[in-house]
């Protein structure tokens, strides 16, 4: 305590942070948790989560690919250290950024999150953050608090129970708890990810990326109720950046992550497009196009969002993106369908014919093959 004050007095606030980091890195994980008494409120929550986990396991929305699942489970295991045997990962096909860990060890990760993280380190940051809540037993504290505020239903919604998809919003997992809990989970998460060999500097980047999407919303940042009640993202980004500065090194594994998620990318991008939240999708896809200029999937997806939004100038933007995707090569067949449909709308039959023909060539098994063929045949000569 004295040493810290001395440092603080002598060297200004950056030294406070250093001292805090030193203190933070002294953090020790607790021993593994025993199953609580059934009659206790924690026990009640545990049993409820067990039932929910069974339902999740049996749900058609569970993503069951063994390789991806094993990989994320392994990551969670390494992050959780001694608690590895208690952590069970469930991947859920839902196009929102969310991960949540229940007090019984169930760790849900939604595909919207898997789509958005740039690399393994960022995924590790989120997993570590959730494991942090679990290790610090925040959920039980929150349960007691919620009960007294009769907000139990909302609390359950945090774990994906009894709530419609999207009710949680884009970033609920990062705001689920109060200021102190979130900061603590951030700290623990950073320590865990660094210990597991990941670059802690990636944690703050998740925030930057999410903010881009939220700011793109028509109503913007100011009206988000989440920001009114919780620590501002700037504070958290700064805190995370400081934490990372104290723990340099570690890997991000961009390329490995890209490879691993490639088989799912088109499905996840289609899910994102279908959300119909055009502004957010455009912000997300623009970021991804900048980050991965050699991947035609992102250019196609952004083109498709422009085409569907069809606001002023959007169709031209769509054409530009579709052409960019085609120029890269390996583009989804729908790229040409998109071009064909726009030119058809604009009564440019030659270009429309070219686009639709190419689509039919590339995707003979497409569900809408017959419809597109009819459009093609009906084009004036």
């Amino acid at each position: 305590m004295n040493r810290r004050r001395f440092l603080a007095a002598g060297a200004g606030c950056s030294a406070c942070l250093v001292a805090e980091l030193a203190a933070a890195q002294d953090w020790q994980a607790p021993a593994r948790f025993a199953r609580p008494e059934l009659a206790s409120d924690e026990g009640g929550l545990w049993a409820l989560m067990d039932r929910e986990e069974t339902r999740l396991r049996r749900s058609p929305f569970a993503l069951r690919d063994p390789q991806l699942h094993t990989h994320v489970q392994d990551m969670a295991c390494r992050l959780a250290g001694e608690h590895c045997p208690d952590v069970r990962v469930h991947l859920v096909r839902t196009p929102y950024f969310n991960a949540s860990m229940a007090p019984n060890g169930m760790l849900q990760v939604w595909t919207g999150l898997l789509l958005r993280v740039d690399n393994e380190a960022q995924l590790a940051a989120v997993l570590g953050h959730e494991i942090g809540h679990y290790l610090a037993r925040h959920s039980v504290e929150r349960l007691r608090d919620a009960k007294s505020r009769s907000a139990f239903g909302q609390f359950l919604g945090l774990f994906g129970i009894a709530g419609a998809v999207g009710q949680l919003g884009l970033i609920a997992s990062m705001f689920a708890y109060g200021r102190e809990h979130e900061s603590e989970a951030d700290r623990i998460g950073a320590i865990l990810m660094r210990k597991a060999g990941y670059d802690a500097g990636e944690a703050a980047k998740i925030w930057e990326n999410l903010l881009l999407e939220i700011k793109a919303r028509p109503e913007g940042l100011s009206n988000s109720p989440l920001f009114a009640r919780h620590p501002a993202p700037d504070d958290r980004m700064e805190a995370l950046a400081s934490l990372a500065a104290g723990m340099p090194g570690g890997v991000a594994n961009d390329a490995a992550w890209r490879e691993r998620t490639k088989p799912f990318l088109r499905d996840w991008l289609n899910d994102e497009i279908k959300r119909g939240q055009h502004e957010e999708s455009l912000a997300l896809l623009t970021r991804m196009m900048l980050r991965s200029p050699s991947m035609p999937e992102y250019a196609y997806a952004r083109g498709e969002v422009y085409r569907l939004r069809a606001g002023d100038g959007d169709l031209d933007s769509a054409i530009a993106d579709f052409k960019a995707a085609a120029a890269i090569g390996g583009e989804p067949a729908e790229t040409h369908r998109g071009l064909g449909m726009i030119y058809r709308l604009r009564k440019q039959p030659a270009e429309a014919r070219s686009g639709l023909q190419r689509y039919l060539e590339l995707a003979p098994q497409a569900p809408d093959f017959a419809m597109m063929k009819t459009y093609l045949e009906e084009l004036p000569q």
Partner: protein
Amino acid sequence: MTRKLLGALFLVSLAGCAAVAKVETGDQAIGERMALRLEGAWNHVNAPGMGPAQVWTMEGLPVDQLLLYSGIKDGALIHPGGPAGGARKSFAFRSSMQPDEIVAMFEGMLTRDGSSFRLVKLEPTAFGGRGFRFEYSLVRKVDNVQHAGIGYATVSKGELFALLYFAPRIEFFPRHRGRVESIARTIQIKN
């Protein structure tokens, strides 16, 4: 069938406003301009606030639903309106919509509650003149029941006419799909 709708249905049935009517074999008129012919009766569940489609069923609303749209005008919502300030997106028909856009509109409506939709087939067909049909699968979020579905639609004089049917893919869709396809073949739209 969303829980909210079920709840609302309950309330109106309590008030005596909801009823199930038998739709008999033979010629039936749906709205002012659409007619069809039935072989075998259906059940028409009638309650205020369920529109704009007519809702028919064979096994009960939680199991299967046949939605009949007749003369939906440009700009009209294709589902019951939500409460004011509801977070869920609304879906409205526009006369300029192409078949793929109409399918996207129905897809949006069917997935408002978090359910997931996958288009299996989309092709032109003779439905009330020139129309199209589509097949799809739907996983209902609220209870994880996996459905198969079929739809038919056409736009005539700027108005939408459509049939949508979905039922659990196990047993029920195979059981009733033939009858839905037969109904679709008999659809006539008057000018």
